[in-house]
């Protein structure tokens, strides 16, 4: 008995040596990864500000523990940029194998940052067994116009959605121009999260897509010329909008979640979210009145895909892949799409799934987005920093 244990240990060491050797870039086959993952602890660094999301991650962690013997610890973070910093600092300090992050929830600017600095492990995502069910018509291979190349696995879809209260706002504004009129008619009751908050920056991009004379430029990496020709309309609009905003545009709410609370109390008349089902969740958990509803803009709103990625110095790479594969599997994606659970859009091709799971995904709860809103593509990831810097320069101080 002892002997065979020692043998297993030896082969495990051999495996890890094979993995560690840079020459053996050829991926292991899936059963090997599953075997290696058994007993590993995966530190999953994911935004922890949503109860529904936290509960879903806890559920998924329990499932992979039961199915594959992988322990998942949800490290609740407030901003994925902090994790990028952590990985960067660890690698800079020479900690290239024993990192503290095994899997992280990421997209856009943070992914671009990680990928261009060689801080990601991969490619691995398209070798996952669950990859076969992924709907390739969705932008799952490009993250804010940056090709993913298998360095991150898609997890869910999102679309910018606005929330209002039927009792006080029966007819919501559905374009940048309507929003300006609405704000002027309701001074002090409209705002948006302060960029560089994720939702605040997305709102800026939404306005930009709606206002810019040159939308094609936004799909390319930003250049000073492109920025100068695409953005003046946005700043002119904000200069007009800000005096009518909450606190006259001098201060801004810290986050979308803070705006939900202000909407609930009537301090604001609008809030925004990236999850078309969030209003339904908030009504269910009594954080919004039952008269809250979701709506989009006539010309469409920004939609994107969010992903999970493995840092280059992750300790439990096999465990992280097993967990990512589970997150992408049909039962996990269907459970996630259920509005009673989280209501996050699936990245799978729904028609390939069994009928009972399809039904689960079509479930709609009161308050969720019911109208069909066209999806606008995210501007290239490099626009994020340029927009945030310019916004902070113009409005970041009184």
């Amino acid at each position, binding site marked *: 008995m002892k002997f065979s244990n020692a043998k297993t240990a030896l082969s495990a060491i051999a495996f890890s040596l094979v993995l560690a050797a840079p020459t053996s870039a050829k991926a292991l086959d899936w059963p090997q990864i599953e075997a290696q993952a058994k007993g590993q602890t995966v530190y999953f660094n994911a935004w922890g500000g949503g109860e529904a999301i936290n509960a879903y991650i806890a559920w998924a962690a329990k499932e992979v523990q039961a199915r594959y013997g992988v322990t998942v610890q949800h490290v*609740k973070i407030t901003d994925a940029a902090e994790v990028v910093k952590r990985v960067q600092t660890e690698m800079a300090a020479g900690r290239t194998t024993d990192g503290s992050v095994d899997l992280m929830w990421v997209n856009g600017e943070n992914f671009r940052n990680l990928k261009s600095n060689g801080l990601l492990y991969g490619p691995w995502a398209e070798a996952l067994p669950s990859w076969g069910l992924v709907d390739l018509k969705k932008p799952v291979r490009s993250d804010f116009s940056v090709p993913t190349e298998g360095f991150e696995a898609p997890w869910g879809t999102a679309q910018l959605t606005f929330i209002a209260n039927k009792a006080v706002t029966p007819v919501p504004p559905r374009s940048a121009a309507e929003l300006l009129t609405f704000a002027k008619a309701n001074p002090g009751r409209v705002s948006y999260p302060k960029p560089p908050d994720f939702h605040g920056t997305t709102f800026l991009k939404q306005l930009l897509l709606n206002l810019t004379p040159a939308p094609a430029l936004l799909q390319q990496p930003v250049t000073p010329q492109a920025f100068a020709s695409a953005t003046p309309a946005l700043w002119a609009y904000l200069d007009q909008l800000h005096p009518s905003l909450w606190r006259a545009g001098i201060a801004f709410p810290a986050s979308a979640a803070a705006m939900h609370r202000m909407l609930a109390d009537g301090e604001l008349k609008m809030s925004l979210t990236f999850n078309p089902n969030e209003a339904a969740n908030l009504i269910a958990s009594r954080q919004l009145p039952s008269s809250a509803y979701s709506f989009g803009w006539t010309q469409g709103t920004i939609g994107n895909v969010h992903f999970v990625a493995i840092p280059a110095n992750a300790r439990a790479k096999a465990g992280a892949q097993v967990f990512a594969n589970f997150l992408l599997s049909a039962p996990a994606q269907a459970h996630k799409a259920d509005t009673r659970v989280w209501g996050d859009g699936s990245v799978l091709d729904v028609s390939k799934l069994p009928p009972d799971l399809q039904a689960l995904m079509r479930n709609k709860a009161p308050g969720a987005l019911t109208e069909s809103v066209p999806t606008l593509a995210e501007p290239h990831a490099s626009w994020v920093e340029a927009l945030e810097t310019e916004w902070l320069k113009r409005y970041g101080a009184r």
Partner: protein
Amino acid sequence: MAHAERHPLGATLALALVGLVFVPLLPGLLWAMGPSLSASVWQALLTDPQFAQALLATLVSSLFGTLLACLMAAGLATRLYPSPAWQRLQQRLPLLLSVPHAAFAVGLFFLIAPSGWLARATGYFLSWASPPEWVTVQDPYGLSLALALAFKESWFLLWVLAGVLGEQAVARQMAVARSLGYSAAQTWRLVLWPQVAPRLGWPVAAAFAYSLSVVDMALILGPGNPPTLAVLTWHWLSDPDARLQTQGGAASMVLLALFSVSAALAYSGWRAWVQRRAYPTGQRLPAVQRPWPWQAPVLGVGYAALGALVVWSVAQSWFFPALWPDAVTWDNWRYADAAPFWTTLWLALAVSLLCLPVVLIWLEWGPKQLNAVLYAPLILPALPLVAAQYAVLLHLRLDASLLALVWSHLLWVLPYMLLTLVGAYRAFDARLMTSARALGCSQLQACLRVKWPLLLRPLLLAWAVGFAVSVAQYLPTLFAGGGRFATVTTEAVALSAGGSRQVLAVQALLQVLLPLAAFALAFSLVRLRSRNRQGLR
């Protein structure tokens, strides 16, 4: 030093134990701050559009907050000591002291925000349908943050005062002066303040340094556009962009400079006052009428904030303008995440119990001139120290471990415990030790049998303070813990930025309950031990 010479072993042990906490910081500071020492970094910092206003908000909130805290504490002590009301006040302090900064900030937010209790109560009479456009929280100059800091720190200062005034010598002086015909107010001015004020120097400095670099409270109540300098520094230090990281390092040096300049000004102001103080004339002034009870608002704010937390924690849905929740439920408590509570409990226990013997060894055998070095973490902005700790842990590959977490807390828990204990320890009647030694006890035996048992009350209080300090740590828990360890404090701050207010109230109350339990335990142990000994109470 005489002790240290006679007991090289004790002195070495004291230095070694304390060195484990402090010495690794030196290379850490070099790694963390070194890159910030360049002209271009400073130019970028000074021209940053957010810098000037962030600095202003920091100055207003910390100076105004500390000043107000001093005024409130000093005013209350002067009015009330000695009287039964002072005794009652003293008894009420532990509850308020055990309310961590973040929890108090959350409670105060629930009170004074435009959708808070105050606005709801006003709106109830004026039939408001939506919240008023008050700028009562997150105001651009950090006044609401200053107010919160003032109340919170005034309790801390009152508690320090209670310790000083509880000493036999002070009580006797008051009695003697009163029997000579001086009024209480006159005695305070002529006899007590000149002695008590210098002993408040370190605690006031600690309160000021805390308000300069506070991040958790500032996130909840402070301005957002731009935030205070401490929050901005924290954002920069944790930014992936290396340029902003060095800018964060430079900004934390600015915080340090702000502290040094303010402290130097305050100290020279004090010296000038002492030198120009008029010699007492011997004239007896009649006692003034006892005025309006000041303690009511100073303590009342704390109770109201706690009340708001309690009501929110059992609320079902509760939207403006409702004065009370629509329905009350235990579900928020039943489904609360208990993991942060247990993490906080074992962490605070481990840290405070580790620190207690270290503090005793240091006080008994350690070199006394070095106390100032130990206080450094209290009067330095926490941010550069946390960054230095993190740099060390990264180099040792210990970050995100249990050991790292406990070690990172020691840096703040140790000095707070020392600060709490040092007064009583130095005031201990040396003749008792001399007698014990004369009766054949070694110094250790004398300590174990005479000194430490007699100091049980301050010892247990110091332990409870250490426990409470550990519970309230935010930045070290985030950095050294690698974000892997969620405590009630990190949880409450994370939730304060958004999410369910009910869940937030539960976590904030758990944050209160832990230190409260520690103080309750300390007090009941003291009472149990001293039930037959009047002088020990």
